[in-house]
């Protein structure tokens, strides 16, 4: 058909406006910028303090590079059109009546499919590696209905713990974190972990959903009341980091945070011994203190709130004024 031929030639004219060479040069420039952005992505993250964080940052860098390439490609094309393909003031004619192009449509369907398979595979293997490193693998998540106190069934494939330390009990409540080291008789509002050792946890909540989140470790797990969730990761860098509640838990949600101290095994053992000697005292607790202050004073409470649990009584207390990275 005549119109068909005309449309094809219109398309060719549009497509060939830039030579293949020019397009290749632009793609190469885009590739270079995307690679550079991928490298920059590492600097947008908190310190890499766990084995998991190294894997996650690598994945993020990879996705940032691909994303940048697509973003620049699409926005660059649109900007070119906006700048150079405007209609003249009194030009009321139409553009070329191109209704589609099979070849182009196949390419822009196939390329995203391949990219998705690529990103999916890399993500899967990253998740798998994190699972290998840490037993929050599928079989490790307890099934609904398991309540604390039930005897834990041994799971096939459960790696024999090579660690020398027992799991740490993480007790969350409105609004305090409490960490218990049952074998050492220590309870603390600050989490202490030995470096380069698998850290294992049993996460429980006394009231509502909470989230165990340490940005420097890139790990996060919701804590569900009525369940005991096994969780683990490996800290690899000594320092003091922030632990935050990541699942909205009511009025003082934002204040429900504390610190994690990663230290050498020797320091860790010393801390455990020293802490066990301390008499239990009431810890500093932002939620309980500000609630009590508001009730005593004449400050308006605003709207209704759940009464915070009293400050936890522990051997070792931390302060909100402590520094962290």
């Amino acid at each position, binding site marked *: 058909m005549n119109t068909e031929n005309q449309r094809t030639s219109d398309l060719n004219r549009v497509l060939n406006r830039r030579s293949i060479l020019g397009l290749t040069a632009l793609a190469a420039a885009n590739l270079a910028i995307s690679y550079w952005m991928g490298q920059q992505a590492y600097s947008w993250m908190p310190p890499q303090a766990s084995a998991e964080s190294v894997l996650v940052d690598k994945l993020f860098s990879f996705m940032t590079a691909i994303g940048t390439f697509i973003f620049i490609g699409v926005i660059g094309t649109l900007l070119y059109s906006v700048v150079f393909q405007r209609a003249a003031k009194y030009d009321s004619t139409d553009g070329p009546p191109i209704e589609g192009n099979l070849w182009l449509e196949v390419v822009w369907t196939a390329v995203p499919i391949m990219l998705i398979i690529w990103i999916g595979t890399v993500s899967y293997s990253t998740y798998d590696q994190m699972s290998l490193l840490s037993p929050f693998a599928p079989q490790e998540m307890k099934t609904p209905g398991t309540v604390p106190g039930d005897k834990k069934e041994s799971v096939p494939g459960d790696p024999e713990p090579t660690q020398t330390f027992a799991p740490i009990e993480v007790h969350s409540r409105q609004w305090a974190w409490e960490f218990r080291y049952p074998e050492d008789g220590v309870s603390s509002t600050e989490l202490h972990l030995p470096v380069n050792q698998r850290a294992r946890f049993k996460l429980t909540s006394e009231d509502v959903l909470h989230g165990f989140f340490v940005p420097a470790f890139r790990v996060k797990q919701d804590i569900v009341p009525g369940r005991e969730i096994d969780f683990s990761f490996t800290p690899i860098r000594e320092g003091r980091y922030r632990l935050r509640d990541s699942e909205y838990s009511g009025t003082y949600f*934002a204040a429900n945070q504390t610190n994690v101290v990663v230290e050498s095994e020797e320091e860790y053992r010393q801390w455990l011994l020293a802490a066990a000697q301390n008499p239990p005292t009431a810890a500093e607790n932002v939620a309980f203190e500000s609630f009590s202050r508001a009730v005593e004073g004449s400050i308006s409470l605003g709207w209704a709130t759940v009464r915070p649990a009293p400050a936890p009584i522990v051997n070792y207390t931390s302060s909100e004024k402590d520094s962290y990275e």
Partner: protein
Amino acid sequence: MSDASVEVRSPDPQASRQPEPGAPDNWRRFFTFSTDHKVIGIQYIVTAFIFFLFGGLLAMVMRGELITPEADLVDRTVYNGLFTMHGTIMLFMWTFPMLNGLANYLVPLMIGARDMAFPRLNAAAFWMVPVFGIILIASFFIPGGPSQSGWWAYPPVSLQNPTGNLINGQALWLLAVALSGVSSIMGAVNIVTTIFRMRAPGMGWFKMPAFCWTVLSAQMIQLIGLPALTAGAVMLLLDLTVGTSFFDPTRGGDPVLYQHFFWFYSHPAVYVIVLPIFGVFSEVFPVYARKPLFGYPVVVVSSLMITVLSLVVWVHHMFASGTPGWMRMLFMFTTMAISIPTGIKVFAWVATVWGGKLRLTTAMLFALGGLSTFLFAGITGIMLSSAPFDIHVNNTYFVVGHFHYVINGAVVMGFYAAIYHWFPKMTGRMYYEGLGKLHFALTFIGINMIFLPMHPLGLLGMPRRVASYDPEFAFLNVIASLGGFLLGVSTLPFILNMLSSWNQGEKAGNNPWRAIGLEWLVSSPPPHENFEEIPVVVSPPYGYGSNEPLVSNNPAGEALA
């Protein structure tokens, strides 16, 4: 008069007398139980926009609180109530009613129908909006204040009810959400039936404008998904008021089950929201680029693919929740798959614009702005679908930034594009381009200024829904807050433009943009019952550059012949 028109017209003489109170120049009709789809469409849009301003005001108070690290501007309980109500109002009282308004106004005109299939049901669905809106707003004034459990209302927080009263903010919230679900289901039945049954002669599926395809795809999600959310809301209401234990863990309920009910609908809801905006992009780009929509059949079929896939991705909101690893991996792959039909659309719009004869009217600027923010949100969306990365940024400001790029970026800018594009049709007047462009510039800068800094904040580990935060996040929060205030200011030129143009704008002809489509063949504003004679469609849509007639008759009748 053709046979078709006789068939559609009601034989009841009462019905044919209705045009008098509903005459296009009678403004009082907007305050009546009118059954005219055009009146209902504008009622929806204006009502929703008032709620948008209110929800935006709440957001500005929140940004005021977040401009400093400490919780100092408002009490923590007030902040928590504010973000709960902001999210609820923006979704259930702005976005959904606004999109129903666009669909109501445009679908019958675009498919060549005189009204919706069930006009009274249509009016009833609209009038439920002010009812549940008042219920929701009333919760600000009852003892204990409004719901403070976030718009997800996850139990057990949502079941805690510190006031101890039977009538509390959470109960009113749940009642309003359930009613909103019923209203939306009524709207969806109507719109789907209209598109299936009332297309003009000759308008086969592949001659139907892309906007109608996207609305159909979106409303089918409403029919499938909304019953799950509405049922979840009713069960939660029963737990809260009469003491059942569907979700209460202390009495054997499962709080994670609620998350499944909630996200089974509330993730697809994102596509209910964004699909019609994809439709707006597909309508606006061809007009102002003077080119047909590139790859029209693939673009419209990809809407249906999105509908199907959207029903099997909900667990990606629960990657860090109490979900097993196999579930995380399965839903990671389904979620990534949804980017393929979405990507097809984005490339098709770029190809539509490419090589055209562009006119950068306000509508076109908003469509281009919406497309670019959507592209950015799509890229961060693929990142979020990757479970190991999501575990780090889940429930942080990265997610807040991502979905605001979708909703305030793509959807609100797409809405503005639609309003500027069809304003002459709706009102018979032209808007002022200068004010429109000022509105675009402020909106575009505001959106990027408030939502871009949220991404690094989330990467650094700032959780969402916090009334206070650690001091290292202060700098980026200040920029975001300033952007938020700018975004608030950006609505002023829009309101000024709309009000003054509607009153005294230059008169618009039938088709000021030289656009192709049935709605542009009738007068502006269109007469009651739209078409004097039902159009007979003979060409596919978007015939720019082809000079082929769209219809074989004159739908406007003799008056304009």
